[in-house]
């Protein structure tokens, strides 16, 4: 394939990765920003979102679109409630101590993974997309006949993939509105900046934490519901999103929500675009080192303040 179309297809793929990553990482970023804890089980909430999506779509099963919409509403809700319960039962009891949270959430990870394996099984299970038309993309060239529109072989995407990007933007915009325009957002931001002060002003910090933890998990689940018609639900699918979200949150600058979005776009797009120039594994190595070097020379992240 020529360079131009190749570049376009890689960028499109990068954009889809970025969209999902932005949602998943935003969940982790909110938790990290407000509660200052490392939630190792975040990827498992993502996985649960996908598994519940399969389950809901499977149960409803009348029309793929109906099942999908139901999953998009139900999966984040269920996962969010479960996460909030985990917060109450475990994290609150250990006072959000950073080290203990790591061990506790690793424990949670084992529990969720094994329970899924025992109920859902080890197979990767697909969810049918609500719509999925292959869209060929035109390209141009200056040939013998001057400017021409052509339809290169293989250059295309699907309507569902474009929808994923759109849906991620809608959800993130909604989240941004909540965080900046509503009282809930105000309380969350106040707790993030100084939880002692927030407590003094009568903010029920414990309850806010449970909500935040639930919201973070729900965002991961939402990302998973969007991705599951492209990929499949599988009990080990949480590993990569966890690592990538982590990286995105730190690169973006701790607790900076716009930074998280920018970093997600940076990482998703670079993953796609670097693959144009190098052999696949080498591209992964380079993309990984690029991200590491960004942090080495800008430890506070892209939008973080120096000396946090």
């Amino acid at each position, binding site marked *: 394939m020529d360079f131009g179309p190749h570049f376009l297809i890689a960028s499109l793929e990068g954009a889809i990765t970025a969209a999902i990553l932005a949602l998943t990482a935003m969940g982790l970023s909110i938790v990290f920003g407000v509660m200052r804890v490392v939630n190792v089980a975040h990827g498992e909430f993502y996985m649960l979102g996908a598994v519940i999506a399969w389950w809901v779509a499977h149960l409803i099963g009348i029309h793929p679109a109906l099942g999908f919409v139901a999953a998009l509403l139900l999966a984040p809700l269920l996962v969010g409630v479960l996460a909030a319960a985990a917060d109450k039962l475990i994290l609150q009891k250990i006072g959000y101590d950073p080290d203990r949270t790591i061990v506790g959430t690793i424990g949670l990870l084992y529990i969720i993974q094994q329970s899924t394996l025992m109920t859902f099984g080890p197979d990767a299970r697909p969810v049918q997309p609500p719509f999925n038309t292959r869209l060929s993309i035109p390209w141009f060239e200056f040939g013998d006949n001057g400017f021409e529109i052509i339809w290169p072989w*293989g250059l295309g995407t699907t309507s569902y993939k474009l929808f994923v990007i759109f849906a991620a933007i809608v959800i993130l915009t909604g989240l941004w509105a909540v965080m900046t325009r509503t009282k809930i957002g105000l309380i969350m931001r106040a707790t993030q900046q100084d939880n002692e002060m927030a407590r003094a002003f009568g903010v029920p910090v414990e309850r806010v934490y449970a909500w935040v933890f639930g919201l973070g998990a729900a965002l991961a689940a939402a990302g998973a519901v969007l991705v599951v018609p492209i990929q499949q639900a599988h009990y080990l699918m949480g590993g990569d999103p966890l690592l990538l979200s982590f990286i995105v949150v730190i690169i973006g600058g701790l607790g900076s929500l716009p930074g998280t979005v920018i970093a997600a776009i940076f990482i998703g797009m670079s993953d796609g675009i670097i693959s144009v120039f190098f052999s696949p594994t080498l591209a992964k190595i380079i993309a990984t080192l690029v991200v590491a070097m960004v942090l080495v020379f800008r430890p506070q992240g892209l939008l973080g303040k120096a000396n946090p």
Partner: protein
Amino acid sequence: MNKKNTIISSITRRTALKALGAGTIVASGALPRLGGYAQAQSSEPIKIGFQVHRTGIGAAYGRWYDRTTNAAAQRINDMGGINGRPVEIIAEDDGTDPKRGAEVVEKFATQHGCDIAFGTLFSHVVFGSAPRAGELKIPYFVVSEGHHVASGKLNRYTLQPGITDVKSQVQAMAPFVSDNLGKKVTMIFPDFAFGHDHRDYFSEAIERQGGEVVAKIAIPPTETSFTKYFPNIPRDTEVVYHVMVGPAVLTFVKELGEFFGPSRPEIFGFIDSLEAVDINSPGLEFLEGTYFWEGMPRYAQPDQTSHDKAYRAAVGVDDNGASTSDAKDVSTFAHMFGCWETLNIVKKGMEAADYKGPDDRAKLIEAVEAMSDMPLSDDHPQGAKLFNGKTHQAFGHQYISKVKDGRLDLSHTTSIEDTFYDDEVDYTKQPF
């Protein structure tokens, strides 16, 4: 005989221990009927340590390896066991991890007192475990289709008699691909050793047929989206050769279809790319008319043998290769027969060696090394095989199926000779 009682299909050590008690009682009752010589022998069960991928990336395979192994053990027990002794399967999860794999082999040898270890699939687990098996001098029968055993990198205690290896599978495909599909091949494979074996052995083989590999696209492991790599497929490609493993296989195949749209080249894949996946999953419609290598045909064919029929019934697999209790639960049919056949070979080997206990382990290996012809039978439902005692590797027929109306129809069977290559090792020269 005694069908109800000698069934030992253990899942955990605890159930195994319970079953052991029952098995011993029944076996001692059954023995006199097997002939006088049996009376003198111990009625203790023969313990087979079963290293199974219950968790980790191999879990989808592990579940079916488990079912096949238990079915095979039950059949052997129904037929009177081995040397009059019942077989007991002691299963331990290796987590599809080479470190745990080695620990599990050690546990079989020194804790459970197993007679042999058996069963694992993923080749890195084989590599991690084989040194311990050799040191502990416990025969280690793998069902992995890796080229590790025949390459000479392992040791005299490691054998692969029940399934063919990737080198022979891959090279046997080249004549079919070049005669029927095209000469210019693009290969897409995972960027680890298993994928590299495909790359190297197929490239060599297709060049011998006058074809060429025009591009080799290695996909990094744990990758979950693939479209961005497909533009590297050259426009003049006549055949795309694909093989992928792991949970993302369905995404891979689906995205391949979406990439080509209406104008796809010929496609030839290893069924590994869709093992345990329903071929009628949404998004796979484009596979109609493409070809797959199969270790054993997933769909019952019109000329189905009685052996295939009996094997399916015993394991609980229907004519579409799915579980008889859940049509959505598709088996790993192209690989799991290896567990069945390996256990039958172990039985034959133990009988030939008059195996009595761990002291006879070397005799067991020599007995298996002495085997060569393994005819198509209930013991070998996948087909006839030739075992090479020097390289500890079996060779057999390979199947190529075409997707037609959402089924895999057998379209070509290779000869066993197609799969031969020169010996790379002679394990029989190594001391025990």
